[in-house]
């Protein structure tokens, strides 16, 4: 966390006059979305998940923006049964519901980049014969804090983030991420992400497309991610976001509105 504070101090060295000519958030951006993803592991496990989410980003002062977001999701964890099980078609499975809320503050120059912090709280509830080891119950509460930075260079965005998540009250999860995003078109973003620390060997390739023929009000999401450890897992996610009111190109939305 000390590094996060050092980063923020560096930001404070910035002369706010230099940013006075650029708005951190040009106008309030409100969006809602839906995602669905499947995860398969080499050990025969299958997860099927879906989530609905919503968020709002709004200006605070000229160079300072804020965001609020929330999500609710449902996951079915299933295992491929032994072929000799009676009956053979039964898949042992568990379901989990989860929800989370996040709030963030950031400083942004749309021509330069963005630095921010956020804080979130989440909850998972299991609905089967299962236990969260940290709590010894079928429920897990989480609190996470993230520091992030983005650099805009032409049609490329370089982003880093550091997250610490408190699991229950006694365990922490730390992760780093590095993401390189590229806009081959003003309405298309391709992003490659890599994670470290407790999420080591996790990689993600994502695509977001905001069709102009839909009046830039909807974006379509496709993501593939993989984690290679003792067992390999692969996930495919599809989804969409709907944007209320402001209909701007995707690159503009990412750098000026959300």
């Amino acid at each position, binding site marked *: 966390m000390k590094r996060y504070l050092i980063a923020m101090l560096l930001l404070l060295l*910035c002369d706010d006059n230099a940013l006075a000519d650029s708005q951190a958030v040009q106008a309030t951006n409100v969006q809602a979305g839906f995602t669905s993803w499947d995860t398969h592991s080499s050990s025969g496990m299958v997860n099927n998940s879906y989530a609905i989410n919503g968020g709002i980003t709004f200006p605070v002062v000229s160079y300072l923006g804020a965001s609020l977001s929330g999500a609710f999701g449902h996951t079915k964890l299933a295992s491929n049964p*032994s072929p000799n099980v009676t009956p053979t078609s039964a898949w*042992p499975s568990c379901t989990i519901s989860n929800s989370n809320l996040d709030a963030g503050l950031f400083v942004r120059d749309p*021509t330069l980049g963005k630095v921010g912090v956020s804080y979130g709280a989440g909850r998972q509830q299991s609905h089967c014969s*299962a*236990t969260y*080891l940290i709590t010894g119950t079928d429920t897990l509460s989480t609190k996470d804090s993230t520091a992030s930075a983005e650099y805009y260079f032409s049609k490329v965005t370089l982003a880093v983030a550091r*997250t610490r998540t408190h699991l229950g009250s006694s365990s922490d999860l730390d992760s*780093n991420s590095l993401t390189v995003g590229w806009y081959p078109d003003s309405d298309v973003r391709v992003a490659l992400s890599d994670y470290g620390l*407790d999420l080591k060997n996790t990689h993600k390739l994502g695509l977001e497309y905001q069709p102009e023929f839909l009046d830039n009000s909807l974006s379509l999401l496709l993501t593939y991610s993989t984690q290679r450890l003792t067992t390999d897992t692969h996930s495919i996610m599809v989804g969409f976001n709907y944007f209320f009111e402001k209909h701007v190109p995707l690159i503009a939305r990412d750098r000026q509105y959300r």
Partner: protein
Amino acid sequence: MRFVISVYRVILFLSIAVLSACGSGSGGSQASTTASTNSIVFSTPSPDAPTPPAQTFTATVSKGTVYVAIPHNGTAIASASYTLTGTTAQIVVNPASPSSLGAGIFTGTVTITGYTCADPACSGLTPGNSQIVNITYQIPPIVRFVAPYVATANTAGTVNIRGQGFQKFSVTGVTFGATAATAFTVVSDTEIQASYPVLAPGSYPVQIQAPSSPGTIISQANLVAVNAPGYAATTISYPSGSPQVSEFLYDAERKVLLVADTAGGKVLRYSFSGSTWSSTPIITGLSDIALSTDGQHLLALSQTNLYQLTPALASDITTPPPTFATAGTYFKNLAMGNDGNAVVTTGYAGSTSTALYVYTACNAINIIDTTCIPAFSQPATTPALDNSTAVGSSDGSLIAIMQGDSTLTSPPGFYQYVAASDTFSAIGIGLNQNSIAPALGVYTPPSTTSSTTATPSTTRIVLSGKDASNNTVTNVYDASYTLLGTLPSTTLAVAVKQDVTATHAYAFTFDSADSKVHSFDVTTSQAGAAFQEAVPGGTALLGNPGAGVRMVISPDGGTLFLAGSTQIVVLPSPL
């Protein structure tokens, strides 16, 4: 301006560099799960045995695990529970009850999986490796009954073997003691028809050979071969009083006659060995008796209870009735099937439909579950009938159920119970029952591997009652309930037999007109017309049995017994 922008770029790069610096995280871990075993086997002697005890194993997950799921599937498992201490789970697996599964080999799995967080905020989970513990549950087949359980010595014959698991495991042979069956057919998972050769007098344990059975096959069935009694014509006086005979049985194994005397409230027992009489204490409301499928119990039915007595009439088990839906309902009548179940009918003071029940008796030789508790049940097909009367065939495969009341103006329907499927069904025959009990002679063809056997069935079912025209009729039907012909309307009691070759069927009637026994060859259909007597003029008895006559025939078909209010009359079979 360019200088200012450059300064900010440098600051932003420094911010990114600080955030990108490696930290002190654990360096990437994934849930790793191990289990103390990868298989568990349950076994039990038979589907009738108690449920085996639960088994326990442990599973351990790695320190990076956030979430542990332990689901199970498969019919072998009734439930699986666990307790978690740190990263170790102790898992208890409870098997399903053998009676719910039947015979067979059943499987299941318990899967232990540890999960880690899938994203930085831990809003999702990523599975680690799974440990699957395979569950196997082995339940061998069982032989429960052989029916009829009494055979005539030195005469080949055919029996139904009842049990469970006959199709789950390939049956390669049937034996009666050390003697192999001459032929057998696996009819269903619960029934085998087997033919035996001539057997000397004695008791023969009935067993099946199924090499793929996972354990020793328990058999509770014994075939008892007895010499044909060859009784001479005689009369037997009651020890006292004038019984009102509601049921009359011949116990061929023990050479005993059993009379249900509803007037005296006693079961009377006459033994040919020593020519002695004995009786039960008073059973208030006594209404019927029947020998259990294995002959090791005498079931005595009163209006309020069902008693399982020993063959010597000592009390063994008493079962109170279920709660009757209609107030004023009472137990009326019972008949035994070849599966250890009895059909129990109920009555009512008046004409109304009341429930029927199936009573599951306990085997006398219950070597599996010594805590057996008899029970009443109602299969889905159980009808509600009007003061119904049930009579079973000698082999227990079929029970005929008549109903009706003298106040009815139109005849109610006839029902049957098929023991092989444990089902009741309505047969499209309308007869209002009278005092003459049905008589059934079920023909079981010899087992053969040929599917082209043309041996005709000589199963004959005799039903008496008032038809739609209010005429008293005594009709003879075949196995499909096709009307073959009629017997005299003056008939008071009926008995049916097949000859030793099973190619002919005969019916014997006790006639009110001349108090004689009349004999009829009912092999060939008369297209609904009257059968002609095979012994013209009938056969006289040494004495008149009296009122309320019931007639039975010995298993070898050689002797008729008639019991009425005056005495018991014994008559060698005229045919």
